[in-house]
Each structure stands twice: as C-alpha cells, then as structure tokens.
C-alpha cells in the first residue's frame, strides 16, 4: 500500500504529540521522583501506544513498549525508585519509539533496526529488587497479576492496571468511562481518549496544516483582490458600491486576522522538548541545570515556530555547554550548584520576543576580542576601539567560538552565526547581553507571521519593489538631489544626524536601467530608505517611495532561489508582480555591511558612550508650548498625520478612519489633564494650532489602534534613561533629561487605559 491508512496516521499524530509531553514529564519526574501522577500519565501514554500498535500489527514497537510499560507500572506502584539510570532508559525508550514511528511514517514498516539489546536493558532495569515491602502496596497487588499476559490481547486485559491505585480526585476524569469504551474497542484506544473532553480539547478539532495553508493562500488572494477593488473604488462615486467595498474591506481584514490565528501555535509546543535537551546536555558535561519557562502560551505562526526551532535549540545547548559552569566552579563563586536557564516569551510592538537567560559565567568582552584578533577577524586596533557590547556581539561572526575545547555539543565554530542567519532569514533580530560571572541573555525578536507582512513599496528603474517594514527605520527625502550625499573614494555616504550612513543605489545594485528619458542627473530629489541589515544601518536610494501596503509573500521558483537580493515576490493591487527585497542580502551585495567587522564601526563609538544595554530609543514630542514628552519607540506602532477635517466625533470621543478601522484619538494634553491643559487644548485650536493637519502617535492597545494626538513630533533619540524625579501627576512615569531638556516620560498604558474607559477622563 502506498498511502498510510487513516487509522495509522491518527496513531502517528497522536503518538508524536504524546511523546513530546513525555519528554517533559520524565525530566520533571527526575527532579521530583515522588510525583506519582506524572508516572501515571507516562504510563498511560506508553500504554496507549502499545495498545494501538498491537492492533495495527507493529510487533517490534509493541514489544519494547510492553517492557517499558512493565517497568513503569512498577515505578508507579512504588516498587522501584526512579533514578538517573531508569530515566535514561525510559528516555531511550521514547527515542526508540520515535525512531520506529518515523520509520512507519516514511516506509510504512517498522524498519530493520534491532531493538532486542535495548529491550534486554529495560528488562534488566525491571528486574531490580523492589524497594518497598509488599505490605505497603495493597492496591498494587491488585494490579500486579496483569503484567504477564499483556502482549497476548493488546490492551484489553490491562484495564485494571490502568487506574491509578489512588484515584485521587482523578485529574483525568475520563478513566472510568474509558474502561467502558475500551471493552469493545481496544483498538481505538487513542482516538477514543481524545474524544473524551480533557479540559479544553473538547472544543478543538484537528485540521491538516496543508489545508490551513491553502485557506491562508486563498485569504492572501482575497486580500489582493480587496486591494484591487479598493484601488478601483477611489475612482468611483456610486455610494452603494463604495459602501459594499468598504464592507468587503472590513470583512477581509477580519477574515485575514481570523485565519492568521488558526495558524498560531503557542511557543510552548516548541519549548516542550527543551527540558529534555537541557537534561541530556547537562548530563553529558556533568553539570546541573534547571530550566524555567515563562510565557509558554505566547503564540507564533507555525512556519515561524518551525524556523526558530533549530536556532533556539542551538542557543539552549550553548547556554548549558558554555554558559553554565561546572558545579564546583559555581560553588566557588557562591552560586547555587544548579545552574538556571530561564526562557521567556512575550509580545511587544507587533513582534515576539524570546529571551534565553542563563546565570552562568557570562561572556568576557576582553576574551572575545582576544579571540577575534587571534582568528584574524579583527585588527588589534579595532579591538581596542570596540565597545563592550559590540565585542560581545562578535560571537555571531562566522567561525567564532570561545570554547576552550570542542565538545560533542558545541564549540565547532559554527553556531551562533547560523543562529543569527536563521533568525534574520525570517525577519528577526538577535542580540546578546552579558555580564561576566553573572550570566548571559540572548534576545531574539521575530515577527508574528510571515505570510502577510506590511511592506513599503518603492520604485527604482521603473520597477516596483517591496521592502519588508521590519527592516525599515526611516525615510529621508533630499529635496536637492545629491546635496547631502558625499563621496569617499567613490563610495556614497550620507550624514544622518551626525552619523555616516553608507548608501546603496537600488538601480545600480540590481543593474536595472532607467526607463524613459529621465537621466539620473535631471532628478531634483532623492529618496533614501534607511534600513537595518544585521546590526548595521544603511541607506537605499530609490527613485520613488510609493506607499505602504500589506503584501502576501510568495516564494520564488527554484530558478530564482539563488538570487540573494530577493526574498520573494508578491502581487500588487493592480495585479502585477513585484519583487520583495531581501534587505540583508541586498546590503551584503552592496557591501554596505559586511560580515567582517570592517564595516560601519561607527556604532561602536556610539555604544562606547554608555552601556547600550541601558539605552532606550525614545520618541520625543511636544504637547503645547515647551512641554516635552517622551515614550519608548518600541510601543509606537506608527506616526501619522491626519488632516484636521478628518477628525470625527463618535460617542463624545474624537475618532478618525484609519486603515479601515475607527481609531479613537486621545488628545494627550486633555487626557493628562489639569484644567489648564484642557483650556490649552482648546486654545490650541484657535491660537497657534492653525495647521491643517494633526500629528498622531499610533499606539496599539489590546489589538486596537489608538491615536495619541500631540502637538508636534520632535525627534527620535537613543540614550540611557536616567529618571530623575518620580511621577508627580497621573499618566506620567517620571522626568528625565533628554537632549539637555527636561522631558516627561509618558505612561502610555495608563493614559490609554484611562481614556478608553467609558467613564470620565482620569483627571476627573
């Protein structure tokens, strides 16, 4: 038979899921050997697998699971005490089961591998003498006789053993009725189990990822069609058509969000395997390591989850192998013998942050520098000038490893650069911070989804290109062409707020000739798109900046896969295809950033001024008169400018129509409100505020955009935040000196929360 039949497929799926859970259970069991309920769960899983595979005729699998089951039943009854040896044995069992399942999946047979030696080992483990007197296990004796005839009739006779001896409030209320079901349908052990609602599972169905992908693609098409319709709408006057297209717009957006959600998976699914990895690696290098996880339910697109699996695994291995010290060394430092790896995941600014922190020996920038010089990656001179933070980030260079000796696990000099490349491939960034002897934190920021992304559309050489917005920092328009662009030995540079920004011309890099007659010289303005590639910035000179648009990323055919400057293609509103630029690839091609540390060392100077770890990027704005305020740029979704007349009133609240949604506008001065400010706000309307537009900082609050209306956006600064005085009025976190001016730090959350309440504003 060519196809795996449905029952087998079901079995594989369910078994894989359960096995992932098992890994975690085993490890936690080892640290707390008395956790009976864990053993019970493990037992149940193995038992389920055994039962089903017996029915499906996978003898080999049945035989090893059977032995494992026997061992587990003795553990459960307290006859054996779990120890490292047994845990290892059982983990091997899980591995073996996985291997066989894998083989079933690919070849439809159990494979040729011989597991009899392994089986022997489990049997030997099982033959150890009991550690408890029989009298203690009254209930166990009822269970015991079940063991021998098990293999004969699959799961059926085992049922009595199935129930935990002390069915303490049974966290698995299904146990009793399961027995009923299993009487006649032992083969359907697995599926039946799922059918009995276990917590939330009752409301869930299993959907093939392929189908979801298809739906996702269709929604992508719909988004494109919607964009086309909207473009067409602009030229139409018919009211009912406009209404309909508006509705189409809204529904499409909602549908897109909905479908997107179906592809979301909690990161916990991926993390489940890490305790096992930590345990194995730690055992390998004789260390004691504990793993803690926070934010397991942070959700990510499945494809992204897949993409970060390997990098994260590598980071974890690295942390255990390099980060955490040996127990003796830790004791000497006065740290607990057991090292800690803490993983944290959370959403921030439309991105997912994943942090891996260890409390190990940290990274010594001096050692890194020395190594880098030794390996010829850096000149001694450069090393001397380099800031601490930049030095630590050298670990991401290809061919860099600080491991004194190459171990089984890491230290081969490939690794961190691969981690970085992989993360950047999906539009993410990696950053590392470390303190010697205190520990290291690695922070990965990745987008929520890859399928539909916001992008900036630009034109160069008559062709349109899309630039993913994650890489976009800012746009600079030079009115007088070439005025700000300077040349050093033919290399164009631009002075951006005092820093030199290397430039690349998109049309030159892509070797696309200009269409029509307009020659480069006749253009009166130039547009620089400031982009981030790796940890460097560079400017991309394009002919026109068109607009931002949500685009659906489509892969390029294999004929074009090797072109590093393109990340894919998309279909624009007018139905034509546009290429999506791969910012990193483009930067490398243009040599504006390089893999060696030659390029753009200017940021080192910047970092040297202060430990960049404490630095924050802040958005500075003005409320009225001279009152300056700042908020972290990370909470800002966008900066917008609306014509004053687009302000509308809904339910006593100012709103504007924004991207097909109604966005409430909070007048900051009023919201922060002493009466003076309110009066000021009104005064602003008749007084100085004669401008036709209003400046709005868009902030996303519980999935809704909220606009903060400010008087004027001033600047974006990066600096160490030194809060001088504590809050003196609600809505303000404190005061700090920024750019030599006293600036208040706005508590955005509080202000928005208050303003969004139906009640009176917070000053009332």
């Amino acid at each position, binding site marked *: 038979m060519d196809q795996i039949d449905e029952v087998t497929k079901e079995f594989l799926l369910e078994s894989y899921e359960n096995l992932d859970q098992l890994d975690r259970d085993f490890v936690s069991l080892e640290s707390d050997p008395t956790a009976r309920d864990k053993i019970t769960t493990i037992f149940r899983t193995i038992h389920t697998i055994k039962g089903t595979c017996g029915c499906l005729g996978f003898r080999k699998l049945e035989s090893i699971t059977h032995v494992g089951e026997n061992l587990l039943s003795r553990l459960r009854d307290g006859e054996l005490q779990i120890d490292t040896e047994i845990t290892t044995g059982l983990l091997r069992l899980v591995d073996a089961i996985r291997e066989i399942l894998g083989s079933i999946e690919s070849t439809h047979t159990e494979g040729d591998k011989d597991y009899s030696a392994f089986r022997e080992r489990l049997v030997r483990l099982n033959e150890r003498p009991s550690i408890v007197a029989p009298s203690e296990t009254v209930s166990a004796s009822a269970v015991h006789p079940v063991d021998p005839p098990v293999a004969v009739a699959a799961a059926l006779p085992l049922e009595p053993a199935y129930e935990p001896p002390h069915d303490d409030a049974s966290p698995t209320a299904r146990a009793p009725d399961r027995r009923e079901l299993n009487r006649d349908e032992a083969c359907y052990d697995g599926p039946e189990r799922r059918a009995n609602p276990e917590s939330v599972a009752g409301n869930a169905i299993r959907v093939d990822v392929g189908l979801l992908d298809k739906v996702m*693609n269709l929604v*992508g*098409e719909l988004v*494109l069609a919607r964009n086309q319709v909207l473009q067409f709408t602009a030229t139409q006057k018919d009211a009912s058509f406009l209404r309909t297209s508006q509705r189409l717009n809204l529904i499409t957006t909602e549908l897109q969000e909905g479908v997107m959600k179906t592809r979301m998976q909690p990161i916990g699914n991926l993390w489940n395997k890490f305790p096992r990895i930590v345990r194995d690696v730690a055992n390998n290098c004789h260390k004691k390591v504990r793993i803690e996880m926070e934010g397991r339910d942070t959700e990510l697109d499945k494809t992204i989850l897949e993409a970060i699996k390997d990098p994260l695994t590598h980071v974890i291995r690295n942390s255990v192998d390099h980060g955490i010290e040996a127990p003796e060394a830790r004791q000497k430092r006065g740290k607990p013998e057991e090292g800690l790896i803490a993983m944290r995941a959370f959403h921030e600014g439309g991105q997912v942050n994943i942090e891996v922190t260890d409390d190990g020996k940290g990274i010594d920038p001096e050692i890194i520098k020395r190594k880098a010089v030794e390996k010829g990656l850096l000149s001694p001179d450069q090393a001397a000038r380099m800031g601490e933070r930049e030095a630590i980030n050298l670990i991401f260079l290809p061919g860099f490893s600080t491991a004194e000796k190459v171990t089984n696990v890491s230290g081969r000099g490939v690794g961190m650069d691969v981690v970085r490349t992989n993360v950047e491939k999906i539009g993410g960034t990696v950053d590392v911070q470390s303190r010697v002897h205190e520990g290291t934190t690695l922070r990965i920021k990745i987008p929520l989804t890859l399928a539909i992304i916001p992008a900036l559309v630009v034109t160069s050489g008559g*062709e349109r290109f899309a630039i993913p917005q994650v890489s976009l920092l800012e746009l600079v328009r030079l009115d007088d062409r070439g005025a700000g662009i300077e040349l050093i030995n033919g290399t164009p540079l631009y002075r951006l707020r005092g820093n030199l920004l290397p430039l690349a011309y998109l049309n030159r890099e*892509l*070797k*696309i000739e200009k269409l029509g007659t307009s020659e480069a010289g006749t253009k009166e303005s130039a547009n620089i798109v400031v982009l981030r590639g790796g940890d460097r910035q560079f400017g991309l000179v394009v002919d026109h900046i068109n607009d931002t648009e949500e685009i659906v990323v*489509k*892969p*390029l*055919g*294999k*004929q*074009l*896969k*090797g*072109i*590093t*400057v*393109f990340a894919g*293609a*998309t*279909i624009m509103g007018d*139905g*034509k*295809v*546009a*290429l999506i630029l791969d910012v990193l690839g483009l930067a490398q*091609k243009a040599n504006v950033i390089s893999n060696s540390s030659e390029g753009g060392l200017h940021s080192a100077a910047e970092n040297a001024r202060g430990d960049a770890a404490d630095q924050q990027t802040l958005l500075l704005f003005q409320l009225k008169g001279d009152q300056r305020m700042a908020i972290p740029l990370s909470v800002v979704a966008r900066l917008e400018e609306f014509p004053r007349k687009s302000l509308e009133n809904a339910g006593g609240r100012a709103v504007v129509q924004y991207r097909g949604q109604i966005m409430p506008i909070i007048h900051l001065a009023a919201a922060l409100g002493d009466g003076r400010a309110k009066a000021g706000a009104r005064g602003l309307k008749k007084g100085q505020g004669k401008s036709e537009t209003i400046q709005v900082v868009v902030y996303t609050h519980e999935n809704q955009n909220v606009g903060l209306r400010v008087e004027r956006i001033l600047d974006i600064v990066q600096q160490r935040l030194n809060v001088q005085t504590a809050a003196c009025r609600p809505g303000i976190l404190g005061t700090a000196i920024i750019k030599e001016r006293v600036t208040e730090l706005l508590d955005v959350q509080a202000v928005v929360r208050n303003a969004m309440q139906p009640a009176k504003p917070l000053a009332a």
Partner: protein
Amino acid sequence: MSDAKQYCSFFVDRLFFGVEVREVQEVIRYQEMTRVPQAASEVAGLINLRGQIVTAIDLRRRLGLGDIPAGKLPLNVVIRTDDAAVSLLVDEIGDVLQVEEEAFERPPETLTGAARDVIQGVYKLKDRLLLILDTAKTVNVSIPAAA
C-alpha cells in the same frame, strides 16, 4: 493504447516541439511580466497566473536561439514541475498530437549545445520532426555566478 502518448506541440523559431500533455497545466496568451534583475537571461520574468506567481522561461534563450522578432508576443505554455508551475514562452501553439512509440528515436549524437541538454528525443512524423522537451531539465535554469 498504452504506447501512444499525447503531446502538446508548439513552435519556437521554426522548430517543432512537444511536451507531454500530462505535464501541461494550461496554455495562455501573452501576459505582462515583471523582470527579475540578477536572474539568468533565460528567465523572462514573473507572471501573475490567477494569484499564483509563475516564473516564465524564454525558450528561445534557453535553446540558444535568437530573440523573438519584434512586434510578436510569445505565448505561455504553463507546465507543472515538482517545484511549482513554470511557464515556457513559445512562438506559436500547435495541436495536441498522438504519436506512436515506434516513431521515437534518441536525439542524434550530432545535436549539440543547449538543445542537446533539453531534448529528450525525436518523433519522426510524416512531414516533420517533433522534438520532445525534457521539462525537468528545461526549467532547470541556474543562477549566474554572483556578478
């Protein structure tokens, strides 16, 4: 008839080609294309095929023939490959032909150049030769070394 195969035939610069019907997804008229800078010269561009982005390969270039005469627009023969659909740009489309296995012959040894690579064999028809394209090889266009 098991040994009779059906071929979708087309012309490229007076040469008469065939691709097995099973491999052909559809034949469509000329579509506007988006050029791909940096790509191999055989890649004519990308077309939007009902929301699917399809790479178009210029068969004339692939075979080392001269460009299509000005003013004439090529047609797209969209074929399925393991990877994704790929369009072959051809001059003109012919009939679907049913041919007998006996008429098949390996390409002559004297055939050289790019054509040798992509021509699987030849059917000797009554009045002309039908050249059978190996589609997998035809669409296998490599990226030129980084310039």
